[in-house]
């Protein structure tokens, strides 16, 4: 019997394993190459477009050299700020319900499911929704509609990260505070929130990073505008609103080389901004863990 049990020749299996390992390493390299290729392209092409004028001047008419993107920079900032201010309180409270009160109840499960679906919903659909709700009713493209679309995209992200972060807080902490006679709302806001502070901040920063690079939801809500009525009482939000991302789209598709260079400049600004936000958000949560 023993004589018949020859070991299988290991050759084929070893070679297959080797091939797969090489394939795995190459895939990882490919992913890194894609990241660096894109960021370095943006860096190289965008750098030449950046100067003081870019940040401090309004755009010039097509064909006229010079000018900058002051209006679009302010516009993106204002739209993102409004969306953040609207969605953060609502999202934090909704997240509290999911983590502290609702848990596995039907209401909470429905809300959680909708949050997951909305997070995967194409942003252009949200744009259409904002168009139907605000552009059709108000009669023209406006900054309100753009901010609303960004708000709808942001809200589910903040609710879900809030829930996840609150769930990481150990129950003993809640019990200790409740045993001292605190009402539940005070326990949540004063104790649980403090324990989850860095996680919540990370979630909010990531949501802002995600929203500030969105183009599709702004295409037919805020549209775009070469003007900026920033000093009127409503920041000019009742009119088409300038913003960086749609400006990039318009300028990149235009036949003017000067505009295309400006589009790269705007791309650089937005990419660096978002990468910085993302990395700092990760850094906050990592220093917390250590």
């Amino acid at each position, binding site marked *: 019997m023993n004589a018949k049990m020859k070991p299988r020749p290991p050759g084929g299996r070893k070679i297959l394993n080797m091939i797969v390992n090489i394939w795995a390493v190459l895939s990882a390299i490919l992913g890194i190459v894609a990241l660096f290729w894109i960021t370095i392209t943006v860096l190289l092409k965008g750098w030449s477009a950046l100067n003081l004028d870019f940040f401090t001047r309004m755009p010039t008419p097509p064909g006229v050299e010079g000018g900058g993107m002051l209006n679009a920079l302010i516009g993106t900032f204002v739209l993102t700020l409004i969306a953040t201010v609207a969605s953060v309180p609502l999202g934090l409270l909704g997240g509290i319900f999911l983590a502290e009160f609702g848990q596995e109840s039907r209401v909470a499960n429905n809300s959680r499911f909708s949050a997951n679906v909305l997070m995967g919903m194409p942003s252009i659909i949200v744009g259409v929704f904002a168009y139907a709700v605000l552009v059709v009713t108000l009669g023209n493209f406006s900054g309100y509609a753009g901010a609303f679309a960004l708000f709808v995209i942001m809200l589910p992200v903040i609710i879900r990260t809030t829930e996840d972060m609150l769930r990481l807080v150990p129950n003993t902490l809640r019990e200790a505070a409740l045993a001292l006679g605190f009402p*539940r709302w005070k326990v949540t806001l004063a104790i649980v929130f403090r324990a989850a502070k860095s996680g919540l901040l990370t979630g909010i920063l990531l949501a802002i990073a995600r929203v500030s690079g969105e183009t599709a939801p702004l295409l037919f809500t805020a549209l775009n505008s070469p003007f900026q009525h920033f000093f009127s009482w409503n920041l000019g939000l009742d009119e088409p609103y300038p913003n960086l991302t749609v400006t990039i789209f318009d300028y990149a598709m235009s036949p003017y080389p000067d505009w*295309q260079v400006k589009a790269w400049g705007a791309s650089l600004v937005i990419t660096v901004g978002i990468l910085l936000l993302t990395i700092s958000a990760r850094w906050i949560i990592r220093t917390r863990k250590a």
Partner: protein
Amino acid sequence: MKQTLEKKDYEEDTIPESELFSPQDKPKPARGDTYFRWLTAVCALVLPLIMIAIGLALLYYSVPALRKFGIGFFFSEEWNPVTQQFGALSSIYGTLVSTILAMLIAVPLSLAIALFLVELAPPRISQTVGTMIELLAAIPSIIYGMWGLFVFAPIMAGYVQPWLSTYIGWIPGIGALFQGPPMGLGMLTAGIILGFMVLPFTCAITRDVFQMVPPVVKESAFGMGATTWEVTTKVTIPYGLVGIIGAFFLGLGRALGETMAVTFVIGNAHKVNLGLFYPGNSIASAMANEFTEATEITYISALICLGLVLFILTYLVQIVSQMLLRRMYRAWSVGL
């Protein structure tokens, strides 16, 4: 009468101990708590309301187009704003084809990268590489579009497409896919870029799944002399199959609705072509390109009806992926 009363008194003394602490004795929650609870519940309910409102709004605005073109809307290739004839076939076809191409790239790549991150790389390298892959998700869609149009498309036109049509294009059957004008813009370019955009999402979850397989199970296979590849295919992947499929559905949902990058490179032609080099369009790119130009009710309605199709598609994909991921996380008793 008196006797019974006495009897009752007597019985009250011997209430079993378990009944002494009846539920009614529990202190009522503070009034602030009740309000707070309701406030948070209302905030949480905003989401389902928004989701229903999105569905209803899309349905309401696509009624004119559906009434005019009927069910034929989904099977007609014609798209002519001048004659007001609209059909969704080319957009739906383009969405599906570009998504399939993206998944063909993202699935093997994310499996391989997860394998590298979990099994092969030392912890520090694994952490760094993992972060870099995740940063791919932070780059905005429009930047992918810019890069695709100005950097990647010329490379496709100059090298990749001529090579593919010379060496694969002549093979009967599969060769038909590699036909068309080598302009660099088209389905293939869009699909490749989409694949890289989806990669970080699928890769993150695939890596989690690989990591959550208990080391004991893997080590026992390694102890029997299995190679890394055999452990992955025979232990890790079967163990986490539900989660991996869930991850791919999540990526699928992303690829279906990705807008700006596709709009830049897909070529924007309302045509159905088998060849992958031909320009086409997707639902999202058609909406992004034409929505602001549309003025007639029928035109806008046709575009919103495309949006409705996309909404339903992503909704179904999301349901499947939520179900699978939920089942996996629950089986491993980790909160989703």
